[in-house]
């Protein structure tokens, strides 16, 4: 790692435990280590329910770890940080605001004057291909279009660290491919570090510079694989590439072991 640039995100020996209603202690993360460089696209794959979303919550400052340290650019996370953006798995756009109102929400919350926020929002709406839909409310849009609103809503804040929690898992295959392409394009212009959580290994390899495989609960990082596929990547054709298939085979062996272990544990 480059010594002059600090790490964008670092988790050191982090533990996050929950108390179940029956009084048992459930460990979601235990002795969890992870480092993401500035500008890096990092993906996490792992069996369902293994604590991937928990990790994102800790970095976003929505929850606190019981042990260990979470840092953003070498400073400990304390509450919600303005440098962080978050794209949720479910729809989290505001249903009572139209597209324009949704996209300009961030700048307005952060105290920008209205006309400036609106101009910037219109620019982002055009960039995600929603020009002409400014006055539509979310329920009038398709799932893919709502995701575009969510992306514009997040990118308008120029996040240094972008956390994405299975953002495209609810979309159909064709729409998902389009959104992946869109995301890569937005990311290449923004230079933000991305932590992308998914259960879809192909998606992780297509998008990321590095892919971490997590163990079953309690989650640890089992292995980190470097994806040395050249950029810019073509999402539609890359998955038939020899190099892609070779990497996918290597990681999926890792992953299958954990999925089987997760199933045995239940």
């Amino acid at each position, binding site marked *: 790692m480059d010594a002059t640039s600090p790490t964008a995100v670092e988790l050191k020996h982090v533990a996050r435990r929950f108390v179940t209603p029956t009084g048992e202690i459930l460990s979601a993360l235990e002795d969890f280590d992870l480092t993401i460089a500035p500008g890096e696209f990092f993906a996490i794959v792992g069996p369902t329910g293994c604590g991937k979303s928990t990790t994102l919550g800790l970095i976003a400052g929505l929850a606190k770890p019981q042990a260990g340290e979470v840092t953003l650019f070498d400073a400990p996370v304390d509450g919600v940080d303005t440098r962080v953006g978050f794209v*949720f798995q479910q*729809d989290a756009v505001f*249903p009572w605001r139209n597209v324009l109102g949704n996209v300009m*929400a*961030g700048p307005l*919350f952060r105290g920008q004057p209205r006309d400036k926020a609106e101009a910037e929002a219109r620019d982002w709406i055009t960039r995600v291909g929603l020009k002409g839909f400014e006055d539509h409310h979310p*329920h009038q849009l398709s799932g893919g279009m709502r995701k575009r609103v969510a992306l514009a809503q997040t990118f308008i804040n120029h996040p240094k660290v972008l956390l994405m929690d299975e953002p495209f898992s609810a979309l159909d295959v064709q729409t998902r491919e389009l959104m992946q392409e869109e995301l890569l394009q937005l990311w290449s212009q923004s230079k933000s570090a991305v932590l992308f959580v998914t259960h879809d290994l192909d998606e992780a390899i297509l998008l990321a510079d590095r892919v971490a495989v997590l163990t079953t609960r309690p989650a640890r990082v089992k292995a980190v694989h470097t994806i040395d596929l050249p950029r810019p990547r073509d999402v539609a054709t890359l998955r038939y590439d020899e190099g892609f298939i070779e990497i996918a085979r290597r990681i999926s062996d890792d992953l299958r072991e954990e999925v089987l272990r997760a199933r045995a544990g239940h």
Partner: protein
Amino acid sequence: MAETTLSASHPQPRIETMVERMRRHNRLVMALRLAVLVVLIGGWELGVRFGLIDPFFFGQPSAIALKLADWFQNGTSIGPLWKQIWVTIYEAGAGFLIGAVLGVLCGIALGRNQLLSDVFSIYIKVANSIPRVVLGSIFIVALGLGAASKVALAVVMVFFVVFANAFQGVREADKNLIANARILGASNWQVTRAVVIPSALSWILASLHVSFGFALVGAIVGEFLGAREGMGLLIATAQGSFDSNGVFAAMIVIAVVALIAEWILTLIENRLLTWRPETTAGE
């Protein structure tokens, strides 16, 4: 080419029959509604004429209509009818506004603040279980025969309904939306304003429909218990002189007031909730 025009023109007549069928259905429903009304009122009137129903106890539709006409033209025994209606609307309206505002404010404050809600929820439960109409007697003793005691009773009637709904609405606000707003940079107050209140709004508006009825009940019961004017007093006076037609006539006037208020509230609701998808289940 011929085929495409054929298939394109094909669904046209079917859509028309659908619209027509719906219109016919609507006309049928209206006619049947009218028929039910005519049968009920007509049956009542005929029952009285043939001696099956005693008009002394149960009134008579034609006499009720005459009573209403008489009230509108010559005024009631306690003064002009418009004055009585206005007094009751004023009391119910003022009570409704004050109770609704207090209910919304308290509901949001307690819904957003865990400590406040832990401390006060028990007292609100207790207060809610008291039959609040009884408080009317206290208000009349304390606040006198004027409008203040009726307004106070209406406030108490409205407050708990609106409060409970506002509280629930705040608690039901989507956790994801709140997290999203916080990450986008919203302060606590901005989260409340931009997420919590809009998502509680449909709960609050639903409670307003019910609670205007309660405000009317509060005002009328208050007038019943002791007043110098108002629809409640008019009913009490009619009751005192065994005038069942007068009671029914007053009831009709109050029902019309309630229906108009309901209509206005629906207009406001539709304006405030334009973002909601249209519900497919018609009326």
